[in-house]
């Protein structure tokens, strides 16, 4: 009897899935980031229901699930990233061989840095990221640049993010060139890839708030507010591009290099989607 009854549920669920996956695809012809963002937010409003406030998505999966949230709040009382945060502060204060320091590149007020990034630079027609500028500062001062995905770059980025908590994302493409970068990132986000043939949107839009095996899938809205992230799985802090690489590998796609044009465009797109949300990095995740 039980078997029979479940058949109806299967059909009902099937129908529900069919509906929800049609909703989000945005228009192709004009590049209109503000309209895309509105559609994106509206999708999540419907998809997640009234109980979840969109702005709480800066906390990722922890905004979705009470149990996980209380575990997380305990973790945050003694944050696992604390030692790396201290190392980041030391790096900030350390003098280069030429006597200068990061403050000479970024300005003295460390709390004002995080929210400037990422942005499109019209002259060089590229996306400037916080990590990119950290290494640019080192090179400009005759220092050896950091490795891109973890270690010192993540420590310093975590310190800058921590000091910049509470400010809001302002990333917004205004020129045609900037919009072209945005569009490149958007296409990446919605494109199926890898042997397993999945798009970022498959997991983090259409099926967010569902479980893939034991993992609750975070909504893409708010993805970028809290990087770098300390993952228990990594045992240390990692940058956004490290996470992108991991998510590409999961679907057996070849990951791109950290700070490649592909990931810079993707980062830019994700920031534009989360424009207006609060920075609260670094984060702690499973």
């Amino acid at each position, binding site marked *: 009897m039980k078997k029979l009854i479940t*058949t109806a549920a299967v059909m009902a669920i099937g129908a529900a899935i069919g509906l929800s996956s049609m909703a989000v695809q945005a228009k192709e012809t004009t590049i209109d980031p503000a309209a895309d963002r509105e559609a994106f937010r509206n999708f999540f409003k419907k998809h997640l229901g009234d109980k979840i406030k969109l702005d709480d998505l800066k906390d990722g999966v922890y905004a979705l699930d009470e149990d996980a949230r209380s575990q997380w709040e305990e973790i945050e009382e003694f944050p696992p990233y604390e030692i790396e945060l201290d190392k980041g502060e030391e790096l900030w204060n350390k003098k280069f061989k030429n006597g200068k320091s990061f403050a000479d590149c970024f300005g003295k007020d460390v709390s004002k840095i995080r929210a400037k990034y990422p942005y499109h630079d019209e002259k060089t027609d590229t996306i400037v990221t916080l990590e990119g500028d950290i290494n640019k500062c080192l090179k400009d001062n005759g220092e050896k640049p950091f490795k891109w995905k973890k270690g010192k770059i993540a420590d310093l980025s975590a310190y800058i993010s921590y000091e910049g908590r509470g400010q809001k994302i302002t990333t917004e493409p205004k020129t045609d060139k900037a919009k072209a970068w945005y569009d490149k990132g958007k296409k990446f986000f919605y494109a199926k890839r890898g042997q397993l043939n999945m798009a970022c949107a498959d997991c983090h839009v259409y099926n967010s708030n569902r479980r*893939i095996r034991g993992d609750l899938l975070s909504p893409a809205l708010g993805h970028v507010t809290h990087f770098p992230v300390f993952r228990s799985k990594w045992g240390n802090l990692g940058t956004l591009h490290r996470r992108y690489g991991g998510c590409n590998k999961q679907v057996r796609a070849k990951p791109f290099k950290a700070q490649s044009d592909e990931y810079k465009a993707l980062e830019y797109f994700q920031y534009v989607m989360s424009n207006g949300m609060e920075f609260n990095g670094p984060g702690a995740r499973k």
Partner: protein
Amino acid sequence: MRAVCRIASLSKISTVAASVLTLAGIVGLSSAALAGDDKKADATHEEGKKLAFDKKKGNCLACHLIAGGDQAGNIGPPLVAMKARFPKKEDLHAQIYDARVKNPNTIMIPFGPHKVLTDKEIDKVVDFIYSL
């Protein structure tokens, strides 16, 4: 957490129970017909189950609740009463081979065309799933 979800979905299910009574006949018949083949089928089921549960192969549990597996995801529908859903075995094979035929935007892996599972492996998975 998982227990809670199951209970929730069961209660939803019971409300629609009345509307499915017509299906009762179908399933009742086909499971009676299969009873004789059970022993022979067991070995293939076991292989199919392994392929279905293996994270490097089918990994169906990533998305589907399947009896006998734990930590199942809930992206796809629970795989139950498969004979009622797919009276023809070929249709079940086709669904697993390439789910895009029915739903072009599906998240389900195109196991056949992307060579995640061979045709033979899909046959075994089908045998297992068909027994659910």
